[in-house]
């Protein structure tokens, strides 16, 4: 059953496989899934492994179980309203409530309530209802009496429900799911109320309960409306949205935290002193200091859009890790000096610059595009010197990689210094390259 589930969910870049199915099966076996809302919650616990999976998961769920496709950027409300599933449900619902006068918004709310109704909600309502009735025992009310009876009925039905053999239950779930796609023939087989909910088929009882927009429906709406719950495009130039992802990539250049290591020399020395009783002596391997130099091209209009984000990125890095970060600026290319201020009025000559600790990791950030004559021998020599001095030097280019081959100067520089696109993925690759080069002691 549900054989197609893993593949369909993988289409949304979610991790679903045979294990997902096994866990789903186990959950049904243990009585965790009795309503469609339960299905949403349990599968979420199994499949979602990151807040960024929430958006794709909700989409996949609506597509798979309800046949409701949510387009990119579309709100859940709109997707539901234009779906056939909702049309069928509405027809059915209005048939059941002929004198109902509510607007579309409210109808969608009720639809969501039914979709996301969980066993927990039902139990809560029933226990709440019993409490209420006990307190109000002196005021017999016809309506309340009916409701109480209805609640009892639900409870019984739920108990009945767990007696159904697993295979049959699975089959039923699957069938109901398929029915969303075929033509609706009226009546009781809509997913939320008819089939897998503990209400059983039809009858007045199922209308005795309403959750009131507090459950998963609200969550699903929130998820669809918030970019936070969708994965960041790792290949787009860094901007406010993926600056945090870029930061995560940058973290890679931090060496592992301190750890204990067997100090062989001391162990032997101390052991000999004890007359051959060797006890392990540990030594703490120190964390290496992280030192970063940024060289940013802030001349020319082509770089303007990126500078603030770049500075933001590295500033965030500085607040998160206590270390050495120096920023210098240049215009188009570096000749004999860089500047320590944004307005390029305080020069730092390259000779002095090259006196710095060789352990600095150098990020040069620029589009490397200029008139061919600007990139002269002096400038190229400077790049070579920087590269020779600081082994861990990389170039990050905000220009999309597919345009790189058009620019002459860019290709010249690229041959000197390894160049990566200024995207979270590019930064990750740059960091890997830096680490690969090892330490230059």
């Amino acid at each position, binding site marked *: 059953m549900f054989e197609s589930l893993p593949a369909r969910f993988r289409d949304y870049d979610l991790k679903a496989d045979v294990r997902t199915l096994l866990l789903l099966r186990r959950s049904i076996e243990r009585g965790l899934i009795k309503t469609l809302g339960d299905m949403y919650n*349990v599968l979420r616990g199994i499949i979602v*492994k990151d807040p960024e999976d929430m958006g794709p998961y909700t989409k996949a769920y609506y597509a798979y179980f309800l046949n409701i496709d949510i387009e990119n950027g579309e709100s859940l409300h709109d997707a539901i309203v234009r779906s056939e599933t909702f049309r069928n449900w509405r027809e059915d619902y209005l048939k059941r409530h002929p004198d109902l006068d509510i607007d579309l918004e409210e109808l969608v709310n009720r639809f969501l309530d039914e979709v996301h109704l969980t066993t927990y909600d039902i139990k809560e309502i029933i226990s709440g209802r019993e409490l209420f009735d006990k307190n109000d025992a002196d005021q017999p009310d016809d309506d309340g009496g009916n409701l109480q009876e209805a609640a009892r009925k639900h409870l019984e039905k739920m108990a009945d429900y767990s007696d159904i053999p697993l295979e049959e239950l699975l089959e039923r779930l699957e069938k109901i799911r398929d029915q969303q796609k075929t033509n609706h023939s009226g009546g009781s087989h809509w997913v939320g109320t008819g089939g897998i909910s503990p209400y059983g088929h039809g009858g007045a009882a199922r209308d005795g309960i309403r959750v009131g927009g507090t459950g998963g429906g609200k969550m699903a709406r929130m998820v669809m409306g918030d970019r936070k719950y969708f994965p960041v495009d790792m290949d787009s130039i860094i901007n406010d949205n993926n600056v945090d992802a870029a930061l995560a990539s940058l973290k890679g250049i931090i060496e592992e935290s301190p750890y204990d290591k067997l100090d062989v020399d001391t162990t032997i020395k101390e052991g000999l002193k004890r007359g051959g009783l060797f006890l392990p002596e540990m030594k703490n391997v120190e964390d290496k200091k992280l030192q970063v130099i940024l060289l940013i091209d802030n001349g020319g209009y082509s770089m303007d859009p990126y500078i603030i984000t770049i500075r933001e990125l590295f500033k965030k890095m500085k*607040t998160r890790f206590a270390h050495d970060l120096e920023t210098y600026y240049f215009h188009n290319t570096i000749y004999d000096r860089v500047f320590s201020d944004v307005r390029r009025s305080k020069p730092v000559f390259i000779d002095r610059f090259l006196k710095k600790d060789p352990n600095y990791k150098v990020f040069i950030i620029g589009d490397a595009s200029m008139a061919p004559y600007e990139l002269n021998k002096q400038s190229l020599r400077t790049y070579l010197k920087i590269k020779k001095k600081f082994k861990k030097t990389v170039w990050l280019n905000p220009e999309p990689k597919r345009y790189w081959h058009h620019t002459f100067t860019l290709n010249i520089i690229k041959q000197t210094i390894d160049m990566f696109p200024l995207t979270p993925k590019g930064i990750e690759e740059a960091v890997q390259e830096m680490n690969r080069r090892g330490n230059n002691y």
Partner: protein
Amino acid sequence: MADKTYWTGSDKYHCDKDLAQVFHISRTLGMPLLIEGEPGTGKTELPIQYARDLGLELFVYPVGSKSNVEQFVASFDHVKYLRDSQVEILNAQREEKGLASKLTTGGRQTENMSDYVVKGPAVNAFLSPNSVLLIDEIDKAPREFPNDLLYALSHRKFILPESGEEISVSEENMPAIVITSNREQELPTAFKGRCIYHYIHFPEADVMRDIIQKHFPQIENKIVDVALDVFYHLRNIGLERAPTTRELLNWLKYIKTYSTEEAIQKIENIEGVGTLIKTQGDLEKIQRHVLRDPDDFKRRSTPN
């Protein structure tokens, strides 16, 4: 038989409905629950309060940068073992020389390897049925730690070092395992696959009100109104480190020592801001906000 009932929080702890359900799911399936979310959203509190409320035994393993699976499961005390075996030789020599006084090994027997096994929280939790095991802040661990846990978590079995003793637990008696993470480092996919995952969303105002009520049942509604308004406003102005539940509760702890009028006055002027704001940059930003347009700020933070 481990507790598999649906737990919805106690009078001390507001358990979000979503979290309560997923916690129940994980216990029913006998799988660890991995909780991620902003700091100060009550991740660690869940297992603690659950254990307290139901009177269950709680084992905690706080993860640090030097954590390893031996500390978590069990380690063998080589130094003690070495000492005791030397003591035995020494005692034999003393006996030979006719000396009566002996050195003691504290009841440990060198033949008995299990005397030297130091049990960690994981083994202790597995040995006491129906207990709760908290692995706190797993993202602080060295990269290999989560992977090392995989075997134990999926087989429900540990093998103790040297003694070779096997500690296993049935699925029925599996302790409720809760793992928390602040997402400072990405956890391995295989590890996450063995857990039921839950991401705690930041609570909305009505939930927050409930949380405050649980902590300070005596507090006046009016104070809570104003404080929540200021609090959510602060969260929305784009601070580097937005204040969280924990900070709000600390702030209210300070505020509530004053009379209602004084308290509201203090909230509006954001006094005791040190409890809410933790970086210099944010502090300056707020001062700028309040100073530049105090009326606007006041208007936002005063209930109608």
